C-alpha cells in the first residue's frame, strides 16, 4: 500500500490527530466518556493504520516488539502499584483517598494513574495482537 500516494499523505496528516485524540480521551475519562480502555484502543489504531499503509517492518522500527511486550506488563504493574500504595500509606487496597492531601486530590491522583496503567496495557495488547496476527506467514 505504500505506492498509493493519497493513502500515504492522508495517513501522514491523520495519525498525529488520532494520537492526540487518544490522549484527550485518556485524560478526560473522569469528565466525559473515555478512560483507559477506549484511549488505548484508539492509540493502537493509529499505529495499526501506520503499519497497514507503510508495512509491518516500518511499524516494527517505530514500535519495537520488545517495547510493546513491556508495555503490556508495565501497565498492569502500574495499576497494582497504585493499589499497593494505598496499603502502604495506611488505607485499604485501591484506597485513593490516602494518596493526596485531601481525599478529593487523592481520588484524582489515583484515578489518573490507574487509567494511565490501563491505557498503556490496552494499547500494548492491541498492538501485540496486531503483530501476532499480521506477522504470520499466510
Amino acid at each position: 500500500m505504500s505506492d498509493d500516494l493519497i493513502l500515504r499523505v492522508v495517513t501522514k496528516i491523520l495519525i498525529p490527530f488520532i494520537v492526540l485524540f487518544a490522549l484527550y480521551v485518556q485524560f478526560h475519562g473522569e469528565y466525559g466518556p473515555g478512560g483507559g480502555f477506549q484511549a488505548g484502543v484508539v492509540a493502537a489504531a493509529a499505529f495499526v493504520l501506520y503499519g497497514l499503509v507503510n508495512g509491518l517492518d516500518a511499524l516494527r522500527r517505530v514500535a519495537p516488539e520488545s517495547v510493546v511486550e513491556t508495555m503490556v506488563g508495565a501497565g498492569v504493574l502500574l495499576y497494582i502499584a497504585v493499589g499497593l500504595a494505598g496499603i502502604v500509606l495506611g488505607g485499604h487496597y485501591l484506597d485513593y483517598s490516602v494518596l493526596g492531601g485531601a481525599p478529593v486530590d487523592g481520588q484524582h491522583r489515583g484515578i489518573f494513574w490507574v487509567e494511565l496503567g490501563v491505557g498503556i496495557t490496552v494499547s500494548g495488547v492491541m498492538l501485540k495482537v496486531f503483530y501476532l496476527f499480521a506477522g504470520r506467514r499466510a
Partner: protein
Amino acid sequence: MNQFGALSYAITVFLMVAGLYIVIARNNLIKTLVGLSIFQTAVYLLYIAPAKLPGGTAPVISAEFDAYSSPLPHVLILTAIVVGVATMALGLAIVVRIYEAYGTIEEDEILNRDREAR
C-alpha cells in the same frame, strides 16, 4: 412497564436467541464466534436499557433534579465489553492456529480429519 421498556427487552431476547442459534447451528468456527459475540451484546442491552430512568437526567448532582439515571450498569458493561473483546481475540487466535494445523475451519471437516488421522 411502558411499551418502550417491553420493546428493549424484546430486542434483547431476540438478539440472545439469535446469537445462541448461530453458535449451535453454524459449522464454521468464525461464524460460531460471531454468534457468541451477538449473544454477549444482547446481555449488554439487558443491563443498560433499564438504567435509564424515565425523566432521569445525567448522574451529576444538581439542585433542580431528583431523578438520576444510574451510571453503575454502564461501568459493569464496560468491564463486560473488555471481557468480550478478550474472549473474541483469544477465540480468533485459536481459530488461526486451528487453520494452520488442520487446513480448514469447518467443524465437521476437522472431526473427519481427526478420525482419518487416528
